[in-house]
């Protein structure tokens, strides 16, 4: 049993922590959010220079060969800083699909550019009727000569506004919810027939509604085998869960510590409110929720690194359940214990609260993952 980090892992953690401390204080983050793009291209360049964009990709593809442990290390620090740069969408999701099942030509064409920071991506997988079921698709991919024609609608596509490429799931055969017949495509985001409606999300990210109207693709756009795409998306989404869940663990730590500090200094009724036992117990509960979620984060990462399969999926679902429950608890209580200040835009507390609640929604909430956990 070994829970220690290697030297490289410690270095990675320290370098991100330093970046957040020096270049991503809360006030700075708030300015970045107000950029037209919703994040900072300068920061993205820095991430590329520091090699962070290449961490999850094999060395053969120009990356650093990082695995799940490296991902949770990075994500936890990003979550502490409420980083809004689209690492999840571009690197973990779009990049992840290519990493898992891309052809050599696709990797050559896209992964290099993702790693050097010149290409942004988005995974367009959710649909309005599908809720959290990755196989529930009305977007179709009909064979058209050697290639395909895509028609349909994709919902809440994270990083849609800045994406240069879209990785799109569509049904090439079978019934609306069949597990067979799902295909994955990588297409330019400005392909003819693609329409977009961009908007910010409540937790300060950027997303789009995307319509596909007779979008033609070549045969080289297919990722993996035709009709066998569901397994790829499930794997990529599990890596996405690991990422956002770890961001949430980082956020919970910031919140409970900030709450303790606040309660030590805020005086009411003649003493610091932190002296009141009720509030002490509440803060202890917040602290314990964080530790539980952190423990499941480690378990999920270690299972993923042992090999992707039902055990890893089960661990990821357990982690997601815990993050959903703990994140809501810590977020809501941080707001409550900060009194009137917890509700202002000026203070960081409310922004963590919003992010933690949205993390519960992303990729399936507590109920969904309890079902998945039970079925594995």
């Amino acid at each position: 049993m070994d829970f220690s980090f290697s030297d490289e892992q410690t270095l990675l953690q320290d370098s991100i922590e330093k970046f957040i401390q020096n270049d991503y204080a809360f006030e700075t983050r708030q300015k970045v959010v107000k950029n037209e793009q919703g994040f900072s291209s300068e920061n993205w360049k820095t991430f590329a220079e520091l090699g962070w964009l290449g961490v999850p990709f094999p060395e053969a593809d120009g990356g650093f060969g990082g695995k799940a442990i490296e991902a949770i290390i990075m994500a936890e620090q990003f979550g502490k800083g409420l980083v809004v740069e689209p690492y999840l969408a571009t690197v973990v999701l779009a990049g992840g699909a290519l990493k898992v099942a891309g052809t050599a030509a696709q990797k050559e064409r896209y992964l290099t550019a993702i790693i050097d920071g010149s290409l942004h991506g988005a995974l367009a997988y959710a649909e309005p009727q599908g809720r959290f079921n990755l196989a529930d698709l009305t977007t179709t991919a009909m064979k058209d000569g050697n290639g395909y024609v895509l028609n349909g609608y994709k919902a809440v596509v994270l990083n849609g506004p800045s994406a240069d490429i879209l990785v799109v799931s569509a049904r090439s055969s079978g019934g609306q919810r069949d597990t067979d017949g799902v295909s994955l495509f990588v297409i330019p985001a400005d392909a003819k027939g693609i329409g977009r409606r961009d908007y910010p999300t409540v937790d300060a990210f950027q997303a789009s509604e995307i319509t596909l109207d007779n979008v033609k693709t070549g045969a080289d756009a297919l990722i993996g085998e035709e009709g066998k795409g569901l397994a790829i998306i499930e794997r990529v989404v599990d890596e996405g869960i690991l990422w956002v869940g770890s961001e949430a663990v980082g956020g919970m730590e910031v919140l409970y510590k900030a709450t303790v500090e606040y309660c030590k200094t805020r005086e009411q009724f003649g003493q610091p409110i932190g002296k009141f036992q009720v509030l002490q117990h509440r803060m202890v509960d917040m602290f314990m929720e964080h530790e539980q979620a952190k423990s499941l984060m480690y378990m999920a990462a270690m299972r993923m690194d042992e090999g992707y399969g039902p055990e890893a999926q089960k661990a990821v679902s357990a982690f997601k359940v815990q993050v959903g429950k703990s994140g809501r608890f810590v977020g809501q209580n941080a707001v409550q214990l900060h009194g009137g200040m917890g509700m202002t835009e000026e203070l960081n507390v409310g922004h963590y609260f919003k992010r933690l609640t949205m993390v519960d929604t992303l990729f399936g909430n507590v109920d969904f993952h309890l079902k998945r956990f039970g079925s594995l």
Partner: protein
Amino acid sequence: MELGLRKQDLAFQAEVCGFIDRHWPERVRGVRGNSADDHRDRTPHVQAWFDALVAQRWSVPNWPLEHGGAGWTPTQKFIWDRETARAETPQMSVFGVAMLGPVLCRWGSQAQQSKFLAPIREARVAWCYGHSEPGTGADLAGLGTAAVRRGDHYIVNAVRTCSSGGPPRNRRAADWMFFLIRTCSGSSPSEGISLLLVDMQSPGIQVAPVAAFGSHYSAERVSLTDVRVPAGHRVGEEGQGWTYARALLDDEAAGVAGLATSKKQLERVGQIAARTPCDGGKVADDTAFQRKYRELDVDLRGLEMLELRMLADVEARQAPGSEPSILQMILKVRSTEISQRIADLMVETLGYYALPYPDELPIDNEGSIGHDYALAAVQGWLFAHASSIYDGSSEDQKNVIARSALGL
């Protein structure tokens, strides 16, 4: 003891429903942009609603009869709250109608009543409540000395956080503010506090917006520097503000139970769940959802009964303000909890469509992203998590309940 509506109450219910159908018809309901509180910023059908209320003498039903109140029984008030919540009518402002108005009716001078009551009753003025001083939130006894008497004026130096409702986008400062301030040292920390009314146009007042969550709740930081407040704008006796504060908070608590609104929201969650696809069926078919929904339904029924008991108790109390109403506090704690749970379930029901948060709020539901109810639901959720704080935190209420009800 009897639970069903009596004949006269059924007749009243019919009268209320008829009034609502005439003055807030179906076609204007549920359309965003409706509930502008600010009298300077109303759409025509919202103004028509308030005009009808005033003409019917139903705009300030909780006030004493001689000041325009409706003299309703607790059951009638309950019926009014339930039917207006069901139809989602615009609301009179809590600050003027529920909080300050009754205090003025009871303790205000003749001159104050002549000057201030009619504009509140006729929905022609925007009041706000400067409730917090930095460093003094719930603990009113902690207010520092900041109003000095000079002849027939007070000179006020203070900072207050003021809420007055209205979406942050349309924010303008209220016309008047009421606030508690120390005017003299008392023998105990709670003595020496007075209730003052100040014209927000007075020289020396600066207002800075403090954005908050949700579209219905926003706040300002109001700084008063050497502001002259006439002694005639002090309500009641100097140094007796604690009594009035108690009444203000009681009235505020009574105004914010919002159970009828919660009931409406839960209905809406059910309707949305019945429409939202999930795994070949609807969210409403999901057993996990059903359990949460049914538990909320049961809890809400219990709280409705608690509210009826509380209303009967308020009627019976001889000297409101001299002691806290335990049932009101229980109701406040539980009703804000339940509104949060319902808001949380609504956000869960939305799935991915809980995320979109466009800067431009669509008017009249046009161009909504995903579902036309989604953005309002998300804003309601944000607001719900503010409500357990802003008028006495749940923790404070529980302390008082422990002392007053349980003798701990």
